[in-house]
């Protein structure tokens, strides 16, 4: 069979058109592979919020070869809103314990920073949730990330298609960024853990309340772009009392009795998901994050303390996310 010049040109054009359409789907959507060879996770047991948390946390941190001496440590808790009796926010006593631990490890400064995504009056959430008093007593500086100085930042992944975001200086200039999520289910993203917690760094003053642009660009995609761009150096997840059901605001408190420490946010979130009775590979941002941010596979996670028990009953979720529950 002979190929005419006309056949050749048509074939070439079709090939070029096909490549144009398919290449964006085949090329990686991240700029660099940030995964460590091996990640470390420690599941600490703590049944209640108490003044002993600093001892538990200090012992847990000794399991990690981290160095914060002379560094600016930014603690990013999950502080959304306040509803009496609900387990919405990272507990202030855990944040205080973390601040104390990092100070003892020689940090130059420890800052607590958050930009609540639901409540615009940040000071009101701080007051109602008990943060204001704790931070004042311990002389810990708080930065409202919804109103911090902003720097246009090129995103280091392209899951959303956004080229850049305005992000807070405090986060971008942190030497050591610690994500401190509350372990919760989430009616839009399945779970909200250390990676989803980064929505709080997106400034409400620029993007509104809630941070609606991230929902329009895709929640899972936004999580990946954010975590690629503002890397989390360490995770301290509050699972002493977690939340199940219609989280992140209207769920039910679920005592889990754990604090999860990790030097890798993907490993942290995969571990937390397992503790919730979920299959982490079914959570898009964990599965995709395991391609370039961190490790989700148990084989690549060194359990530095006890292994977590899979709960008797998986966490309750809204119907759309029942597929997360591991068999």
């Amino acid at each position, binding site marked *: 069979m002979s190929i005419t010049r006309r056949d050749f040109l048509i074939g070439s054009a079709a090939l070029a058109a096909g490549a144009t359409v398919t290449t964006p789907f085949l090329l990686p959507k991240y700029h660099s592979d940030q995964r460590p060879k091996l990640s470390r996770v420690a599941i600490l047991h703590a049944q209640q919020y108490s003044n002993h948390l600093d001892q538990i946390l200090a012992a847990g941190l000794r399991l990690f070869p981290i160095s914060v001496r002379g560094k600016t440590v930014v603690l990013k808790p999950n502080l959304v809103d306040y509803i009496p009796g609900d387990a919405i926010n990272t507990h202030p006593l855990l944040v205080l314990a973390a601040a104390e631990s990092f100070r003892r490890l020689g940090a130059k400064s420890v800052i607590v920073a958050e930009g609540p995504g639901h409540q*615009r009056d940040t000071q009101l959430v701080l007051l109602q949730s008990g943060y204001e008093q704790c931070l004042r007593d311990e002389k810990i500086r708080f930065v409202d990330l919804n109103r911090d100085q902003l720097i246009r930042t090129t995103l280091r992944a392209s899951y959303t298609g956004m080229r850049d975001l305005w992000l807070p200086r405090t986060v971008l200039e942190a030497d050591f960024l610690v994500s401190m999520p509350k372990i919760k289910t989430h009616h839009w993203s399945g779970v909200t853990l250390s990676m989803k917690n980064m929505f709080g760094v997106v400034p409400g003053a620029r*993007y*509104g309340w809630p941070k609606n642009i991230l929902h329009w660009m895709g929640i899972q995609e936004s999580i990946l772009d954010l975590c690629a761009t503002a890397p989390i150096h360490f995770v301290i997840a509050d699972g002493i009392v977690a939340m199940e059901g219609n989280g992140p605001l209207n769920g039910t408190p679920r005592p889990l009795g754990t604090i999860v420490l990790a030097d890798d946010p993907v490993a942290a979130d995969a571990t937390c998901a397992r503790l919730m009775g979920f299959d982490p590979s079914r959570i898009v941002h964990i599965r995709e994050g395991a391609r370039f941010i961190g490790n989700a596979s148990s084989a690549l996670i060194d359990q530095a303390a006890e292994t977590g028990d899979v709960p008797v009953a998986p966490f309750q979720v809204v119907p759309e996310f029942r597929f997360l529950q591991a068999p």
Partner: protein
Amino acid sequence: MPTVTTDPIVLSDLLAELALRQLPCGGWAALASSSQPAIEPTCYSALALDSVPVGDLARAQDFLLRTQNPNGSWPVFPEDDQGGGWITSLVVMALRDLVPAIPARLQGLHWLLNCAGKEANWFWKWKFRTADRHVRFDPDKYGWPWFPDTVSWVVPTAFSILALNQIPCSCGGLEQIPFRVNRGVEMLIDRVCPGGGWNAGNGIVYGAALAPHADDTAIALLALRDRAEDPVVQGSVDYLERTAQALAAPCSLAWAILALAAHRRPIASLRSSLVALPNLVSTVDTSTLALVCLALDYQRALSAFGVTL
């Protein structure tokens, strides 16, 4: 008759602090620790410093005029993208008494009239009616988004209504004002929380009622001053009046004072609570500092928002 605060010394101290925070460019930064000027704190500060002999109001107004986008909108801060956002409505109000600003304000108003929540588009309306129904709202009732290409929210809608209501006529390309204001009012009424009051705009999600916020409620109530007889408005004023008694955060308390005054509810005890809050003068958030000044001078502040008592 000028408003006399219960504690004029507090007010003068706060105004002096506000004046000290003015940046050389004429604007104010959002936080006391920042040197990046932003439009929102500048608007509140300009309103607070209007007709008092501290600060450089002319420089603030000039800053606002210089930062307008070519499309008539205002950015959140000077280096921001030029697409504009909700802050446009607040600037239009902050420049209300400045005659040379009339063309800029008109451009801003035209931009506001062309800006609508994404659910105003038939496709998104259809999506919210059929496929995406976890948040309870009527997509026929739309207002203004925080930024173009997103859906309507309570605070930007309320500020836009306040700004558009200040225009005495709907001519010269502004014929859409009554229609847009009415749609915005309907949207606010639709988004109310089940027990009264508003949050960002999600009253019910996944069948569960979400709690209202005092500041969002107060801003919505300012915009709904002309609908005071509506049961939704009355219920929300009641909610705010109950909630305000326990508020210890100056921003929410200041907004509550303004809204309750607008709806002719007693505010004397709330003003006393506000001036009694500790360390007001060292409030980090400059918008909050300015709002406290406005709440302590509430008659003038309400006039600036176009609310007559």
